[in-house]
């Protein structure tokens, strides 16, 4: 509404609405899900219950979501999965809100530099190459993610570490036992270990990663390396929890990792 004459607004002849004003009413201290009306709390859910199909299964689903605290739950679909399992799709209203102004996300890097910047940063500050050893550890054979970070070719249009003049790299590939990774790291006097973990079923990644830290600690060499881990189900937070120095999740690009390593080593 460009017109600001207060009189015109109140008159039924120019009873007008100002959408800019009316739309800017989200309370970031109390953010709730939004379906089609601010704070309606609408949320979609789907899950399977190990019970036979029928109205009772639907009602069990509704009750479950009630107990979870959702309001006005509606089960909109159910499907017999056989063997006394029933799949349910439901909608409900989420009663809780989140204070968006308080959300903070731990991140590994503060400033991501470019390929050239990183190389000259390393040349200036460290005056030597950074030595990194990478591996997909345990039984994990998913090499694409680690290769994306380490190999020449890189990822998403960005060169991998191998291409950087500032890095010397050893990519051990897939299904590398933690012991072999450590012995290689010791052998080449690595600055950093880059571990990739893609398979997460039954939390096998947590097991593998914890074991690596324990082995390093047992040998008393934990502090000789920056310990970095990446993978589609990984976050910086989880990495810290597990005793790593940094974690990188889905969509990570090589410069992010390179910048982190360079800056972190420069700090020391």
């Amino acid at each position, binding site marked *: *509404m460009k017109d600001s004459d207060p009189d015109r607004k109140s008159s*039924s*002849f120019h*009873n*007008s*609405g100002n*959408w800019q004003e*009316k*739309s800017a009413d989200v309370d970031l201290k109390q953010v709730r899900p*939004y*379906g*089609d*009306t*601010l704070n309606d709390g*609408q949320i*979609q859910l789907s899950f399977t219950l190990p019970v036979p199909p029928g109205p009772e299964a639907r009602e069990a689903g509704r009750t479950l979501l009630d107990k979870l605290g959702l309001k006005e739950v*509606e089960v*909109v*679909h159910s*499907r017999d999965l056989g063997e006394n399992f029933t799949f349910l*799709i439901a*909608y409900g209203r989420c009663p809780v809100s989140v204070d968006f102004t308080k959300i903070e996300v731990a991140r590994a890097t503060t400033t991501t530099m470019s390929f050239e910047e990183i190389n000259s940063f390393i040349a200036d500050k460290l005056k030597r190459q950074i030595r990194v050893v990478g591996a997909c550890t345990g039984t994990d054979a998913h090499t694409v993610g680690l290769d994306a970070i380490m190999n020449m070719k890189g990822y998403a249009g960005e060169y991998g570490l191998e291409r950087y003049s500032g890095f010397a790299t050893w990519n051990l590939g897939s299904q590398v036992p933690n012991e072999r990774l450590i012995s290689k790291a010791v052998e080449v006097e690595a600055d950093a270990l880059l571990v990739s973990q893609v398979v997460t079923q039954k939390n096998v990644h947590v097991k593998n990663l914890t074991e690596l830290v324990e082995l390093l600690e047992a040998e008393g060499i934990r502090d000789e390396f920056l310990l970095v881990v990446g993978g589609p189900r990984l976050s910086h937070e989880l990495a810290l929890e597990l005793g790593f120095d940094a974690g990188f999740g889905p969509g990570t690009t090589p410069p992010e990792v390179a910048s982190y390593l360079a800056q972190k080593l420069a700090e020391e």
Partner: protein
Amino acid sequence: MAELEVDEKLVADCHKAAAEIADGVDSFISGLTTTSVERTVIRLLGVNGVDADKVPVPNIMVDQLKEAELLNEGAAHCLGKALLAGSYEVEGLARAVARGEAYLPDLIKQCRASREEVTSFVSDLVEAKAGKIKKTRQEREELKKELSTGPRPWLYVIVATGNIYEDVRQARAAARQGADIIAVIRSTAQSLLDYVPYGPTTEGFGGTYATQENFRIMREALDEVGQEVGRYIQLVNYCSGLCMPEIAALGALERLDMMLNDAMYGILFRDINMKRTFIDQYFSRLINAYAGIIINTGEDNYLTTADSLTEAHTVIASQFINQELARRSCLPPELMGLGHAFEIDPALEDGFLLELAQAQLVRQLFPEAPLKYMPPTKYMTGDIFQGHLQDGMFNLASIITGQGIQLLGMLTEAIHTPFIQDRALSLDNARYIFNNCRNLGQELEFKSGGRIQARADEVLKETAEMLAEIGKKGLIPSLEEGIFAGIKRPRTGGKGSDGVLECSRHYYNPFADLFRKELSSQ
């Protein structure tokens, strides 16, 4: 482009029958007007606003004229006289009427001008007002040129929160998500209101009231976001209902780009009186035509109640009729968004082949029309995953057959009016299918003598037969027998018949005359 063999002889028969049918409609309504047409004229002359009870001034004026048995002269003439009485300009008069301070019949009595003076005065006023619509139209054309409207099929999504401000929020988000067209669905209540509500509204059910102010708010919001995303975002609302021409006028004034406008939808789906509907649709479409607004016809609705397999031909028969009636309102083919739908039971073996046959047939029968293709609704269920897939197959049929306007299906169709994310998922769906299969239609050929061709042949044959029969019988008796969607409507029944009036000998509708004259000279 994969093309079907189409029997041109049958097509010619269809066009001929449709012309006959339209002739019947013309004579059915000749010499008649409606309260809604007259309110429209009043609005177009610049009257607006409501009284203290929220009754719109155009309604008050028409009621006054009707009561005083003056309306048969045409509201334009009456208003001209009232203004020539000298006390008011248009705006002032509207305010005075709203405040109960002016009574048109009294003013008219005071008017001393001759018939010629009145017509000439009205004519000047009409020309000025028509000029504004023309300017609005030009403005649209310039904006379209400046920003472009996206490749076809255009991605058309609805907003339907019931609250214009939430609608705006969702519409702007949709534009950023990639929508080309935003339709603001109306509240369930509105089509049967015999007036157009006023001002911004926040309390609709299953949709938001169509008001001039709501149009304006949405237009402004979309223009702004359109600049940011670099596309001209087209805006749609509904003409149908008891206020068909009035809303068309508001759409023309507020630069809507498309309007749902079907010659028979009101009769069939809202039980509105036949005469009322046919008169109203004629004028409303003249307005649409003059404003350069694409109409969307509503044949898709037939298949939400009737059987999509056995009644497929009724959709096409209706398109021929809608098209012929639209032509008589001077709508050029490029503004005829004839509607059809993807509504065959997804459990049917080879059902997709039949959908392809129908979509391609319609495409070839109306080659210049920006066909409006409607998504699966009837067979959508609470299984949103399966529903998303059905919508994907609908998008595929569209890109193979080259439809013009793609109303996107929503995975939550069976559950609620769209949430903000439903639209985004649907836009992603359509973009993926359209892009990934962009030239699939160009690559394939329909097997001559195959199932698809056979289905198209069958449907066209049934269409021609149906039109021939309606042509023989007349449209009105056919509607009485329930020829479309199985819905029977008696000739004299339905809502709004009290708004149909005989025109006096001197009656004229200066806007209709002007629009027709200008449009047919193009």
